[in-house]
């Protein structure tokens, strides 16, 4: 990556200059244009899983995930067309239709990124058939709890555990709709020998899937923890 060289591109008709190698998402954010996302988090390796940040690039019929696509010189990016809005609404509905998302009784109610995005994008009902699950809740850890029924598989927890805490307790098993976050080699959380109990997974979880028992959600959620630690490590 050739650092320090600046490139110029257009986002939603606005000319912006960013460092080469910056993702479209970051370039937009740094210039005050917010593209919705659920899986991306500053400080973590981009993953491109939630597909909410898809953007249009002039000259290509494809849509690009803004979180993993680097900005190029001369690029013309549209972040908020009618087509993108309708796709984002459908993506939220797909997330809502899979597993159990009952805001009223969720620990993260009013502090949930999925709920906030649904409100922001005007998703007030789900037209798809819901696929409820009844996964047992793992509350075997002293204070960390995982309710996989609420998981949207953004993998923030897996990435923060690997990259920031450096223990890689969390990972995945199965595929497709059966994909699940697991601890070590699919142990119960209480039996995990690698978990340090650092709570970062609970802090970054965008929904109420991982939380701390007996703690108000406002105390738990510090979604900038990865950004903060990365900045400290880089002496910024």
């Amino acid at each position, binding site marked *: 990556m050739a650092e320090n060289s600046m490139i110029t591109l257009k986002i939603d008709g606005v000319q912006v200059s960013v460092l080469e190698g910056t993702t479209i998402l970051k370039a937009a954010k740094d210039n005050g244009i917010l593209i919705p996302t659920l899986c991306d988090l500053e400080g973590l390796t981009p993953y491109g899983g939630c597909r909410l940040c898809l953007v249009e690039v002039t000259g290509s019929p494809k849509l690009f995930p803004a979180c993993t696509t680097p900005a190029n010189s001369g690029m013309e990016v549209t972040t908020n067309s009618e087509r993108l809005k309708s796709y984002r609404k459908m993506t939220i509905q797909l997330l809502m239709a899979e597993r159990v998302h009952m805001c*009223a009784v969720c*620990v993260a109610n009013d502090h949930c990124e999925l709920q906030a995005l649904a409100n922001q994008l005007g998703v007030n009902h789900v037209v798809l058939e819901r696929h409820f699950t009844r996964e047992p*809740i793992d509350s075997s850890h002293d204070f960390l709890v995982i309710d996989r029924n609420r998981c949207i598989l953004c993998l923030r927890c897996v990435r923060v555990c690997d990259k920031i805490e450096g223990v890689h307790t969390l990972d995945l098993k199965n595929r497709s709709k059966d994909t699940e976050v697991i601890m070590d080699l699919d142990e119960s959380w209480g039996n995990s020998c690698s978990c340090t109990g650092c709570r970062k997974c609970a802090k970054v979880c965008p929904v109420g899937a991982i939380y701390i028992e*007996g703690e108000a959600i406002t105390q738990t959620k510090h979604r900038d923890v990865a950004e903060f630690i990365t900045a400290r490590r880089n002496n910024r």
Partner: protein
Amino acid sequence: MDNYEDNSSNKLFERKIVINPVTRIEGHAQIDILLNQDSTVREARFKVTDFRGFEKFTEGRPYYEMPAITSRSCGICPVSHILASAKACDAIVGVTPPKTAVMLRRLIHMGQLVQSHALNFFHLSSPDLLFGFDSDPAKRNVFGLIENHPDFAVQGVKLRRFGQEIIEKVAGKRVHSSEWIQPGGVKWPLTRERADYLKAELPKALEIAKSTLSMFKQQMLNSFNDEVENFGNFPSYYMGLVNSDGNLEHYDGKLRIMNKDGNIVVECSDALKYQEYVGEAVEPYTFMKFPYFKKVGYPDGAYRVGPLARLNVASHCGTPLADEEMAEFKKLGRNGIVQSTFYYHYARLIETLFCIETAKKLLDDPEILSENVTSRAMVNNYEGIGIAEAPRGTLIHHYKVDAQGMIIWNDMIIATEHNNIAYNKAITQVAKRYIKAQQLQEGMLNRVEAVIRAFDPCLSCATHAVGQMALDIKLFDANGTLLDQQSR
């Protein structure tokens, strides 16, 4: 329902009148009035048509989610569910919440009782009492009230708002403030600004409660002698919580059951023992169970709960103004037991006064501002029971959990259920007195509904009760053919 099928063994009745839905109550219900050959009333049945399934779908959820989930069963008295549920969770973790947490829980409950009682009296019941049971149904509702008695209606709104404000200031939200509660206490303390705000609002609410009570005594109490005599006026047992002095209690205390002569037949401080005294029977025509006093059996062990029952079982209120009123109230009955269901309205107003006085007492205690509001603990017991007095009566939450704290069994006995046998007795009595089946009149049927309203049942979280709702009354002959129909 145009063709009537009777599930019971007795087929002697000839015709039936159906009131569906029953209006100006919280939730959905239907009343069937069964007639004899000679068109006299044989029996009336109160049917709850809702089915919710809370006890089943909460299985597998963590115990600490129960206050949030179960409070959704009702939008009028969510606080009572939150408290009964939190108390059951306290028992599961096996801790005593700090004194301030208990005070705050009590305070929010006082707010709940005030707003719920105000809703029943002003919005739902007062149209009958002010306009009369036979008045034009187009006016006999909350809109008619606003048009004809605007000051009275505003007082109702203000009193209810005060109750809601207590809940909001203490717990953050007016309805479903479950984020605030937690096993072992509450999540955040009360700030001085909020306490001061409530203290400043309190005298106005007290004034409304006092003036409403004196208005009720002057204008309403003596104008409905016939209704007093026939509105569910029968002997029964009474159940309610009392504190250690035997006084009126809504949050925590001993469960007391009294008989019709005012003798205490049960008094237990161990919540787990409620099962020894309360049994539940099932009838095929309704989704609501029939709790009964086990020592006597079903259906003779009918007991009543709620404001009337609470004042009956308690020796005193424990606050000066409410005590004066209670002494006057008790004179209406024998041995301090007031029997007519019509007096639920009276009892509700006395309780409102008591709640405002108690809220004042709590707010005046500096300890309510303490920041020590949570005892922390993990699952220590696998079973927990929480009993609280909801506006409508004794509310019981009973949970069993596994080692991780996941619910494996759950039983909720809702306040409204306790009165089920009494509802059926009461509407049968009213129907026998007022229904003349050859000439159906709206006012007759309204009385049957009104006796249910006096109990203030809460059948779900809905309050779509503004008098404009359809009331269908159907008259069937012995073959199930529709003979007559009236709609409003």
